[in-house]
């Protein structure tokens, strides 16, 4: 079959600009062949080349003393966790395939990220998923959501990896363009780090895994364009089909093979399949590679070189073997009954040469195509909608009339409701290491000797245990409303979740999901939020070890909200420090670390809140400021308190604010099927005025008491002067009469209960420890106060405006079953 003639139309169809085509001709010094055009189109797609995001990605901090393999060097970053052990982890998106075929799209997303991890020589030991869908009232959204969850379950469960954590948000902006980001973490010894480099001139190149078919043709290119009806239909064939059974065999065989020392380089065939793996391994090693396509196992008859090179058939690996040790490789693949073939050799030419039955079909300088892709500085312009967002005030929003109804609405909101409908479909316990399962702020995973890859000669097992905390986060509404502050908040929330589990962060991997970068307003969102992410990473000293960019997330219905998701991993020193979010014992004291309300914020934490979205139908308002120093102080203080051994529970205050946080403390301990352990709480939020105000009142009170001839003062709280914010001249509600009011009444009730002011955590401890904990937190620069007491079977709240109580069983019913009911 003759190759098609290359025309401008054909170039456009390959998603290359005419300028990029000209550059390609310049690199080759001639017209490309059809196969070469295909190779360039995938290698220079955003998915493979990061051509629109490189300048932004460079702003992330990527170094720390723990970083053994940094961002962009290899398939995944690697961090030292002490004692000669290391972890490899990464998050990756499979958004467009999942929009077209949710089950297989999501399943192969899991397969792809697992391969990225064992390619590094690490044994994959856990997964997480970060998902975004439209609203569940839409049947199509339910189909996508159900399909994606089933696909992740299918692949992860069969492979035998616990999907131990994750998150799901539902928002109209993802209708038609769901996001499926999957994370995998693996463990290895320092000396077991494998490299994706084609080292050693003359070394044979092996292909391992199932035969190559026409499935997944040019998936990377598909992922790098807007999703339209037409493209989805055309690309239905571009979605690959996953086989987790095969992946499990390939993984075990590769780890066994790596232990022999016979492997010079290894790389999975992920996006852009054979093209990307051959080209990148040669580029990394500064060598060349020559392959013969007729030796590639093929599933379909008469496949063209173009198809073989661009296929994204799953579960395939490229392995460069030390010459003379081929027999060892063959023995291991035969043990695991895996198809393999020797398809080429490493050369010294620096070129990637592809032959088909002896005829050269591509001959390209490897380094130039892999690392000299075009880089674009896109135009950025602040989106028009932000003017209205900034102008929004609470003036036209009456305070809550029925906190109970609002609380119930929020607990039943799919974004906040229990995600048990999702995670009960995942085997989150396999491998016997899941110490904190889905349903708390962060998952906790233990590592033990059988978490490691095999050694060549089994050694007597050195017993060890390590404890990792893991979380994924990304509240995109905050990013949509303020890209910079929202970007910071994403990183800070993840770090806060780890702190609540008793961990210190080691590093993070990010998945940047955005709309079309050619739209200046969309690119501005990307640029500004990356600025926020990077600044937060620097302030909290958390390196970015790698990640993934997924642009072009827009469907005919419009662009998605800018959605950076981060997966963060932390280390817990001792098992006693592992902390969960649910309240433990009757009589325990409930403390709030952080300010109940930030009076400097005119919206008192309600901008972008779940409350405004659910109760008021408003997705607007400037989100709460994210002060990085405060955040760091909170995380450090919390860690110190947890290390004192006195903290019984810790829960991060985020979507739904303080009242939802308290409710979740009462509701979220699940013991077994249909058996949750519910416990009530009584809190008094009249005391919840800023520490600065309390301090000033106290000082004034003491002054009065000590002043000669003074009369006894009235109770301190009631005589409180204006709040700190008002004192700084910030407008608060009815600022004119602020000084005359008592402080608690200056706080809107809805803001007090449901505001999402940053950097707050609710902890519990034994009542006798409460004072010591509060003092210790304040010493560490974190406002702290007691809110109430755990116990009973109701959640009871006293505020200045009244007292309410709700049976926890009733709240639990709404929260636990909401998602299942929505899915029918």
């Amino acid at each position, binding site marked *: 079959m003759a190759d098609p003639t290359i025309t401008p139309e054909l170039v456009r169809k390959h998603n290359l600009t005419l300028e990029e085509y000209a550059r390609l001709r310049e690199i080759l010094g001639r017209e490309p062949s059809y196969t070469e055009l295909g190779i360039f189109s995938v290698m220079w797609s955003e998915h493979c080349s990061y051509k629109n995001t490189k300048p932004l990605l460079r702003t992330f901090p990527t170094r720390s003393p723990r970083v053994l393999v940094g961002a962009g060097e290899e398939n995944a970053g690697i961090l030292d966790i002490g004692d000669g052990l290391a972890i490899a982890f990464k998050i990756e998106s499979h958004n467009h395939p999942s929009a077209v075929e949710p089950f297989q799209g999501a399943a192969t997303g899991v397969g792809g990220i697992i391969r990225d991890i064992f390619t590094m020589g690490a044994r994959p030991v856990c997964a997480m998923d970060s998902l975004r869908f439209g609203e569940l009232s839409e049947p199509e959204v339910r189909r996508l959501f159900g399909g994606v969850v089933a696909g992740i379950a299918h692949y992860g469960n069969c492979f035998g990896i616990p999907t131990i954590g994750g998150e799901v948000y539902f928002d109209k902006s993802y209708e038609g363009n769901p996001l499926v980001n999957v994370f995998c973490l693996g463990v290895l010894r320092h000396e077991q780090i494998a490299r994706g480099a084609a080292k050693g001139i003359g070394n044979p190149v092996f292909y391992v895994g199932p035969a190559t078919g026409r499935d997944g043709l040019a998936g990377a290119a598909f992922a790098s364009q807007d999703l339209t009806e037409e493209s989805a239909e055309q690309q239905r064939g571009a979605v690959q089909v996953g086989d987790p059974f095969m992946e499990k065999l390939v993984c075990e065989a590769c780890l066994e093979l790596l232990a022999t020392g016979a492997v010079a380089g290894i790389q999975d065939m992920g996006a852009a399949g054979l093209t990307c793996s051959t080209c990148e391994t040669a580029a990394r090693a500064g060598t060349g590679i020559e392959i013969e396509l007729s030796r590639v196992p093929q599933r379909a008859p008469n496949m063209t070189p173009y198809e073989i090179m661009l296929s994204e058939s799953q579960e395939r690996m490229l392995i460069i073997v030390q010459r003379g040790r081929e027999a060892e490789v063959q023995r291991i693949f035969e043990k695991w009954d895996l198809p393999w073939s020797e398809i080429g050799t490493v050369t010294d030419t620096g070129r990637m040469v592809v032959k088909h039955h002896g005829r050269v079909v591509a001959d390209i300088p490897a380094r130039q195509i892999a690392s000299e892709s075009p880089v674009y500085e896109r135009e950025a312009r602040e989106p028009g909608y932000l003017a209205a967002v900034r102008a929004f005030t609470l003036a036209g929003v009456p305070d809550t009339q029925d906190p109970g109804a609002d609380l119930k609405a929020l607990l039943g909101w799919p974004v906040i409701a229990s995600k048990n409908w999702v995670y009960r479909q995942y085997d989150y316990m*396999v491998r016997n290491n899941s110490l904190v399962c889905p349903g708390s702020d962060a998952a906790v995973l233990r590592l033990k000797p059988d978490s490691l890859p095999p050694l060549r000669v089994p050694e007597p097992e050195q017993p060890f245990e390590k404890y990792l905390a893991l979380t994924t986060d990304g509240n995109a509404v905050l990013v949509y409303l303020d890209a910079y502050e929202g970007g910071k908040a994403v990183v800070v929330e993840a770090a806060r979740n780890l702190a609540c589990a008793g961990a210190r962060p080691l590093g993070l991997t990010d998945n940047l999901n955005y709309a079309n970068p050619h739209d200046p307003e969309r690119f501005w969102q990307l640029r500004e939020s990356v600025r926020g992410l990077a600044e937060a990473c620097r302030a909290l000293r958390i390196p970015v070890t790698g990640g993934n960019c997924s642009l072009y997330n827009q469907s005919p219905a419009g662009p998605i909200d800018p959605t950076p998701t981060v997966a963060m991993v932390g280390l817990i020193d001792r098992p006693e420090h592992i902390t969960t979010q649910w309240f433990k014992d009757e009589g325990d004291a409930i403390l709030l670390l952080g300010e109940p309300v930030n009076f400097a914020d005119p919206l008192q934490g309600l901008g972008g809140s779940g409350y405004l979205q659910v109760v008021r139908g408003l997705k607007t308002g400037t989100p709460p400021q994210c002060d990085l120093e405060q955040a760091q102080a909170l995380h450090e203080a919390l860690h110190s308190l947890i290390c004192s051994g006195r903290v019984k529970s810790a829960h991060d205050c985020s979507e739904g604010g303080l009242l939802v946080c308290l409710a979740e403390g009462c509701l979220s301990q699940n*013991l077994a*099927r249909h058996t949750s352990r519910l416990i009530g709480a009584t809190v008094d939020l009249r005391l919840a005025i800023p520490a600065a105000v309390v301090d000033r009142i106290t000082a004034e009170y003491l002054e009065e008491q000590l002043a000669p001839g003074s009369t006894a003062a009235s109770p301190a709280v009631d005589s409180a002067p204006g709040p700190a914010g008002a004192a700084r001249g910030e407008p608060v509600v009815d600022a004119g009469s602020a000084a005359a009011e008592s402080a608690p009444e200056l706080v809107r009730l809805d803001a007090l209960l449901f505001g999402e002011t940053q950097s707050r955590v609710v902890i519990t401890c034994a009542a006798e420890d409460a004072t010591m904990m509060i003092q210790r937190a304040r010493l560490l620069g974190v406002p702290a106060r007691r809110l109430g007491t755990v116990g009973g079977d109701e959640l009871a709240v006293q505020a200045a405006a009244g007292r309410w109580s709700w049976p926890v069983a009733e709240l639990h019913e709404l929260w636990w079953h909401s998602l299942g009911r929505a899915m029918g």
Partner: protein
Amino acid sequence: MHFAVLQFPASNCDQDAVYALRRLGHTAELVWHKVATLEQAAAVIVPGGFSYGDYLRTGAIARFSPVMQALQTFAANGGLVLGICNGFQILCEAHLLPGALVRNRSLQFRCEQIFLRTATGDSPFTCRIPADRPLRLPVAHGEGCYYADDATLTELAANHQILWQYCDARGELTDDASPNGSLRNIAGICNAQRNVAGLMPHPERACEPLLGSEDGCLIFASMIHTLERRAAGLGSPSR
């Protein structure tokens, strides 16, 4: 006591079984499915996972592995065999246990903690489990709905071959307590000779405080107790 833990392609709870048994002070080794002998073992665990990808039917291909021929002999000679999850499915496919495990009635995979009532202490797998104490163990399966015809069910009940049933926290056999819709809430059974048993829940995932439950130890302790009595020339124990 030495345990053999069978390893099929895509077994994935094999290491967990070895880990749990070693932690309880026993020796345990993986036995590759192409190996055709089980002579060293005092007892055999057929672990969970997705043997051969569970293609065709769960356990349907695994039963043809060479090691399964050895297992038939081992069982015929009275050796203790415990199948867990996929292992239970394989034992049913291999006709070492009656009945079959079909898709959960929810049509979804279920991973959660469940409660288990031990229906009889009269077996090598239950003799050390206190009566009337619901065990809390994890399940993680998509095809755990036990099915058998009426005659088989009647026979199982009459012979006290039903070892474990799903119950609620109070020990009641309610419909809701079952994660998969099994007939008679059956979670695990044994053969007529009482030396081969299978269950869907995972005792090997519940053998240490850090994992939230140690109830799984009771099942292994029962097997050990039986093996020790046999080694001492005593008969099979009962509760």
